[in-house]
């Protein structure tokens, strides 16, 4: 009985365009919701989360020595075969990488190298802007990796930014934290 009533109700609703009206209401609501657009790169910029897997970086230990012991485990586990490590023995008799190259053009940022490393020497940091005109520039060596920015302390916000094309294309963020983009958008 109630099912029949439901069906009658549905038909009455259709006769008065209840379905169309609810669709119009939905789009109207969205019209006044916050837009998801991030005006990258010259107005806004997104700060990555702490767990974000961006460009790799190599860490130093307390004495300022490179932490990597050139065990080549990262090179082994890498599914893209994009890490190349050549070991040598330094003055103190420690095994260190003479050459440590990551071909970021082939890397898929899975983070396995970070997981595999026994010396906690490599990690994926917060940098995500490293596009280049030549894929050769994407092969990053040991010394450059040591200088790359580390993990983000906080993040997940959108901050005001400025595009600087004087020396190199650089998006400068002027504030440490912005509005939380993910919280702000309307989802259903």
């Amino acid at each position: 009985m109630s099912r029949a009533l439901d069906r009658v109700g549905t038909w009455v609703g259709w006769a008065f365009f209840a379905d169309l009206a609810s669709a119009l209401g939905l789009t109207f609501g969205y019209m006044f919701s916050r837009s998801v657009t991030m005006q990258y790169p010259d107005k806004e910029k997104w700060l990555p989360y702490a767990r974000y897997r961006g460009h790799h970086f190599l860490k130093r230990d307390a004495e300022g020595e490179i932490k990597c012991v050139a065990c080549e485990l990262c090179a082994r586990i890498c599914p893209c075969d994009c890490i190349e490590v050549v070991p040598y023995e330094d003055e103190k008799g420690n095994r260190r990488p003479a050459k440590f190259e990551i071909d970021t053009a082939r890397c898929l940022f899975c983070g396995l190298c970070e997981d595999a490393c026994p010396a906690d020497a490599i990690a994926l940091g917060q940098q995500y802007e490293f596009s280049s005109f030549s894929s050769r520039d994407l092969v990053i060596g040991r010394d450059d990796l040591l200088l790359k920015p580390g993990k983000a302390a906080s993040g997940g916000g959108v901050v005001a930014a400025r595009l600087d094309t004087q020396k190199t294309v650089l998006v400068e963020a002027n504030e440490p934290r912005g509005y939380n983009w993910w919280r702000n958008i309307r989802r259903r």
Partner: protein
Amino acid sequence: MELVVALGLIAFKVALLIAVLLLLPLPLTWMERKIAGHMQQRMGPMRVGWHGLLQPMADGIKLLTKEDHIPAEADRFLFKLAPILALAPPFVVFVAIPFGETVSVLGAEITLYVSNMNVALLFVFAVIGLEVYGVIFGGWAANSKYALLGSLRTCAQMISYEIPMGFAVIGVVILAQSMSLVDIVRAQADLWNIVYQPIGFFVFFVAGLAEAQRIPFDLAEAEGDLGAGFHTEYSGIRFAFFMVSEYVIMVLVSVLVVILFFGGWNGVLIPLPPLLWFLLKVAFFVYLFMWFRFTFPRYRYDQLMTIGWKVLLPLSLANIIITGIVFS
């Protein structure tokens, strides 16, 4: 002397009308893109000018400087004629459209319409029907299957929807005892026609959507399945002609809805200048058109025909009969 002044006034009004109508698509495209953007949680144009206000200008300049391409197999004469045929009728129709009663400028009473024909409604429908030639010729002359399919659809669609559209206004004519648009608005001074003619309004509005070829009835240029429909092969300024025509027709249908069913320049409650009332109502319906566009999907072709012949036509006929019985 009198005659010269009258003629000069008419020429001035016509020139003003053409200028306004030609410039109207600029803000309308901006509005449409902004509305589209915000409904889809985007921002729409943001970069050219303040919040993209100058974007239509940039687009216009781009269209003007684009290559004017004519396909090799096209019928060159018809191909060039079609955009003009599509553009002219919507402009001509506005000659018969009243925007208000009179305003006094420098002590002289000036009517806010170019002409007050006693068959204005008939004129409007006759001329608006000509617009379809531009679409049909455009699709035919381009010699492309997408364009041809688009114009074939338009052909069938226009025929199916002009009939209920024409029938829907008969109720209004019965009420006003006149076909002059000015008289029709005057007859609504106390109560708007929408109260007496809800079915008539519904049929007219849906048919108007189809007439303006807007979603959900934009089968002529269904970008999903026909490229861009009848203007697939057009580029540059000829394409712009079609776009201008589309926007002017959208405004025209809104204006007609307001005049026929929503009391024209008669206001309610808030005493605003009549012209402002009129423009506000028209703006609301233009917004409604855009709102529909970004809410509804497109009807399938057979659904379109079903709606036209099996729903709108019987409804409009019933509306005539009921109106005739009640108000005779």
